[in-house]
């Protein structure tokens, strides 16, 4: 199944099991990026509703709806459009749970496509995951496989709190097996995608397959990379990362977003707080440089996180040295 289809399968599962789940968004019936395609045919225009181009009011409406019995899922299409509604996302959706002293819980899922999708230009290539991590009050998930895409969506919709569900647009057309049994993948757990002993690579989204490819390549030269798919950024499963470091003693973080104040900075800082003695070298961040994503294919390619970037970072993490047997 394609990853984007798996997203839709997850939504369908949740809509079948719970009549209060409704889907909203611009062109959500035809689905520009694919993740809601086909749902209108099964659930009709009442439950799958196209919205006007009014991101602020629509996110705001999700809040009022969630406070009064709906479990709305809103597809914002591209992650950059989230900024249009940022007040409703941060000051309202994220904070109401806390500001109300726990009286109000808002089960809203905000979907957005992140990262470049083949030269769409800066505004259609943003990844607001770090801004969401900063907000406090929104869970953030980023699947990298079709199986997770479905399972995390089911968990996100069932969750009592706001969840930002970010789909790496460059993975929308990737394929993989999907659990037909409609099981949720619990939020807050990373997945070890490949075992290794020399370096841990903690990655998100399309940086996961890039890291796996890099690991394959490095394996030939005797470097065994452990690849962790973080997949849940809030809550962040630091235990899995730290367990891995206990073995590898080296860390690379690979992120599909800008470097400054990003996921990489946070993981590096947290790991140091709990595993300083363990690390033999400083954590290495692989991320976009601090630029809006450029349009030109060669610049876009230079900007994003590729297999080569991860391989180079692993080598840097090992200090250029071949690893000794760990």
């Amino acid at each position, binding site marked *: 199944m394609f990853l984007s289809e798996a997203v839709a399968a997850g939504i369908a599962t949740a809509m079948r099991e719970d009549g*209060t789940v*409704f889907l909203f968004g611009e062109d959500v019936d035809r689905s520009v990026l694919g993740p809601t395609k086909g749902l209108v045919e099964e659930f009709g225009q*009442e439950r799958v509703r196209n*919205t*006007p181009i*009014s991101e*602020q*009011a*629509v*996110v*705001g*409406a*999700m*809040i*009022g*709806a*969630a*406070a*009064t*019995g*709906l479990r*709305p899922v809103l597809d914002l299409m591209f992650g950059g459009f989230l900024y249009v509604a940022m*007040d*409703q996302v941060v*000051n*309202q959706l994220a904070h*109401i*749970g*806390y*500001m*109300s*002293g*726990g*009286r*109000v*819980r808002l089960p809203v899922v905000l979907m957005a496509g992140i990262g470049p999708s083949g030269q769409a230009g800066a505004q259609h290539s943003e990844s607001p995951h770090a801004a969401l991590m900063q907000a*406090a*009050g929104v*869970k953030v998930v980023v699947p990298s496989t079709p199986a997770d895409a479905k399972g995390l969506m089911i968990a996100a919709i069932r969750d*009592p*709190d706001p969840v930002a569900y970010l789909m790496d647009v460059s993975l929308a057309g990737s394929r993989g097996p999907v659990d037909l049994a409609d099981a949720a993948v619990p939020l*807050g757990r990373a997945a070890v995608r490949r075992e290794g002993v020399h370096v841990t690579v903690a990655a998100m989204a399309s940086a996961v397959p890039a890291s796996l490819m890099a690991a394959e390549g490095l394996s030939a030269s005797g470097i065994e990379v452990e690849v962790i798919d973080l997949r849940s950024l809030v*809550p*962040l*499963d*630091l*235990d899995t990362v*730290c*367990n891995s*470091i*206990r*073995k590898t*003693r080296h860390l690379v973080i690979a992120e599909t977003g800008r470097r400054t104040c990003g996921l990489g900075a946070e993981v590096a800082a*947290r790991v140091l707080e*709990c*595993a300083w*003695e*363990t690390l033999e070298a400083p954590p290495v961040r692989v991320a976009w440089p601090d630029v809006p994503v450029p349009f030109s294919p060669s610049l876009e390619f230079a900007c994003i996180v590729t297999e080569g970037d991860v391989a180079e970072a692993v080598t840097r993490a090992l200090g250029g040295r071949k690893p000794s047997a*760990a």
Partner: protein
Amino acid sequence: MLELYRLMARIREFEEACRRIQRTRTGPGPDGSVSSAGHMPGFVHLYLGEEAIAVGVCAVLRPDDLVASTHRGHGHLIAKGGDVEPMMAELYGRAAGYSKGKGGSMHIFVPEIGMLGTNGIVAAGIPHAVGAALSCKLLGLGRVAVAFFGDGACNQGVFFESMNLAALWALPVIFVLENNLYSEWTESQRLTAGNSLAGRALPFGIPAVVVDGNDVLAVRDAAWEAVARARCGQGPTLIEARTYYYGGHFEGEEFFAGHYRSEADVASWRVRDPIVRFGRTLVDTGETSDSGLELIRREEAERVARAVDSAVAADPPAISELTTDVFADTEPGTHPTVTPVTATS
């Protein structure tokens, strides 16, 4: 009818109490500790002079109807059935407050009375009411939702987006514009193009009426029609209620704002005081007597005084509350993720 008077009196007494307390304000200790009555923290936006709007509108609502409020929300809370004790406790930052002391005046949410929240961001509550109306419609609950907001909020884009959404989907929502002529310290006419705020609803096909916001019965009647339309599926209505705030933008602002309105203006509005006027009507129609009104005022003053006393005596939240309630299921920092690791070799 007496109940309307009582609610207006309750709001008035609540706000006057806040005003008095803030004027004897001493501020918290260096560690944030507060004890005496003079220690109400933060700043408050009072509803003094606008009482007829919240009370008139909420008079035609059912307990399970929904209301989204603003930074000036005490009146909406009380009119919708809020209890002054947890309200006052919240203003004092106490654990017994509606938000456990975490929210304060601008962040009070009371689902059990249909209060979707006061709100510190101008106009941000408007779409919340629209969304609540959407649930009412989609879940077939027969409830309606009300968005209260000010004349200043009418320049925020989300107000227009919300009207479009509500009209498009024929949602059971009433937009109640409390036009008190000011956006903070600037006369709204210096900020607002066109000559009718109510008229901003018309391009969306939303009917709009203008009422005297200091006349509780006029407000109630306008709200009654709007609610009736909403309940039978005819969609939204906008009510512009013209009023004035005696207290200005926030209590204690004089030091910062200087003189931005004339005494004469304030006085001219005092003459039209909504509570005095409605009291006179009640007496004139034989509904009650002057002393009957007096009794209500005294009862409400005592109710508020008790709320102040109990708020002053109440405990602040435990410091451990700092990190709870961000999520339903977990506390930040207690996710199963922060076990310290040490080297194995």
